[in-house]
């Protein structure tokens, strides 16, 4: 069953798009990530122009995040206060990132730098999470006692963060931390998001767990909460400045991803937090692995062709 997309200007298979939405929605509901890092390349793969794939994914992410957020809100698993600070930083960071992107684009070799930073960043996070997850799971299941490093770098950082001004208590997460930490963190992630053109939920989640030390139960909901705002901002700016949001494509994905988010959310609650974290680590590692290899393997086509707007 084919439908012609008015903005992308090509026909697509409706079933394929619905399944794609279902998958990204499921990931959003289960792990609290937007799913743009899977949806965008898959949309490009079926022939949607890159600019339209990026913007339309942002539009679809709003729906799956709202659907997933509401499910989490019902269980009270959202730290709205923390989310608001993350949104402030996210807006500053993504604006900075957009300017930085334009600057780097003029100077030339930007792609390679971004890809390398990304692979290193994502690779180290996912391996860290994976090791952590395996340790906790095996410790529980087989009563293995893992040696704990006395002074990890993270502890040093947390000690240092305790002395920062503007300490605020976040009752939902049960943590007290200087607001400078979540704001700086989300500025950094915002910059990366703007540079990479994708959601950033999958960087935000590990950051919430390891740097902010938020409990796993509220991480998914809080991540979805802040993603909604960032995705709304992106969708609107793209629609107004570049006309790259295809509402027909978005609508198809919105329907299935909202449903996917509900299914993902329910599946997420059935799995314990440690396994969930390990699953996410595996997913991130797979993405990183694919990116790493695509840097070194010969591309399918040695030339890239784009239509320029007049």
């Amino acid at each position: 069953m084919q439908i012609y997309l008015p903005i992308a200007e090509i026909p697509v298979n409706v079933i394929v798009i619905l399944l794609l939405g279902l998958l990204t929605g499921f990931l959003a509901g289960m792990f609290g990530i937007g799913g743009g890092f899977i949806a965008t390349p898959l949309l490009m793969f079926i022939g949607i122009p890159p600019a339209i794939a990026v913007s339309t994914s942002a539009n679809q992410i709003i729906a799956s995040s709202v659907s997933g957020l509401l499910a989490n809100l019902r269980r009270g698993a959202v730290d709205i206060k923390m989310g608001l600070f993350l949104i402030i930083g996210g807006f500053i960071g993504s604006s900075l990132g957009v300017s930085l992107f334009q600057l780097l684009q003029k100077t030339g070799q930007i792609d390679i730098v971004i890809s390398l930073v990304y692979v290193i960043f994502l690779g180290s996070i996912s391996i860290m999470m994976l090791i952590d997850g395996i340790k906790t799971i095996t410790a529980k299941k087989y009563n293995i006692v893992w040696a704990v490093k006395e002074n990890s770098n993270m502890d040093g950082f947390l000690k240092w963060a305790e002395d920062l001004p503007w300490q605020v208590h976040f009752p939902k997460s049960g943590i007290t931390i200087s607001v400078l930490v979540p704001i700086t963190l989300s500025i950094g992630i915002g910059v990366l998001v703007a540079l990479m053109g994708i959601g950033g939920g999958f960087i935000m989640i590990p950051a919430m767990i390891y740097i902010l030390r938020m409990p796993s139960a509220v991480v998914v909901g809080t991540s979805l909460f802040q993603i909604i705002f960032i995705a709304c901002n992106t969708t609107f700016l793209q629609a107004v400045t570049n006309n790259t949001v295809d509402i027909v494509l978005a609508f198809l994905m919105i329907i299935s991803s909202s449903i996917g988010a509900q299914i993902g959310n329910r599946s997420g609650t059935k799995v314990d937090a440690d396994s969930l974290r390990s699953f996410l680590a595996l997913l991130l590692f797979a993405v990183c692995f694919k990116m790493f290899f695509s840097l070194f393997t010969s591309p399918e086509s040695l030339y890239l062709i784009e239509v320029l707007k007049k």
Partner: protein
Amino acid sequence: MIKLFTASLLSIFILLSPSISVASSIISGISTNEINIDTKFNGAEILLFGAKDDFGNIVIAVRGPKKNFLVTRKEKLFGIWHNGKRVKMKESYSYYSFFSTARDTGTSEQLMSELELGKNNIDFNSSADVNPEDKNEFQIQLVDHFEKEKLYLNNSHGVDFLDETLFKVMLKFPKNIARGLYSVEIYLINDNNLSSFQTIPIYVNQVGLSARVLDFAYQQSFLYGLLSIALALVVGWLANYLFFRFIGK
């Protein structure tokens, strides 16, 4: 049929080629002048038919609206692939299909080149600072890309003769064609002389819901952006409500 002749273009070509004999030695028409892209669009075919009453080869070229293209070469640096040299190809045909009954184009090569007939004769314009070798390399890649996308078709056997004078050709337009004005050009070439020429326009437009969405997105992009967001918010909320209502926590 006569109104399909664009008199002005014809006169230009008469001036171009002094050896033109009779203007009406070839006459043809197409099954439709319009390709309407609606939500069910998945490519189109148009039948071109005609008759010739003179010697010579029939050469047909269909040209799509011109667009600017950016071709980027991927390069390897310390084993890592990245985007390297870029060349902008200005005002290139977004669609080009070519048919000819000539077995050997050698005799009329000069004329074919002047009229940009055949994929090897299409003119490409890059910026002035691009050296000819690079231009040639990137041009070949662009044509290659178009051929893979079925946007450039070079078909020397596509002209079917029903008898000595009557012929038909099936013009194929893939699903990813650009909107705009296309021109079908039919030439009768005898040796190196253009003995007849005709051009027929084809309009490719979006229609119906598809067209309305397109207009809305471009003309009222502010509202369009807000609507896109509202749609996502409402459907996301609705999905949650329905799941909660009928499936439970």
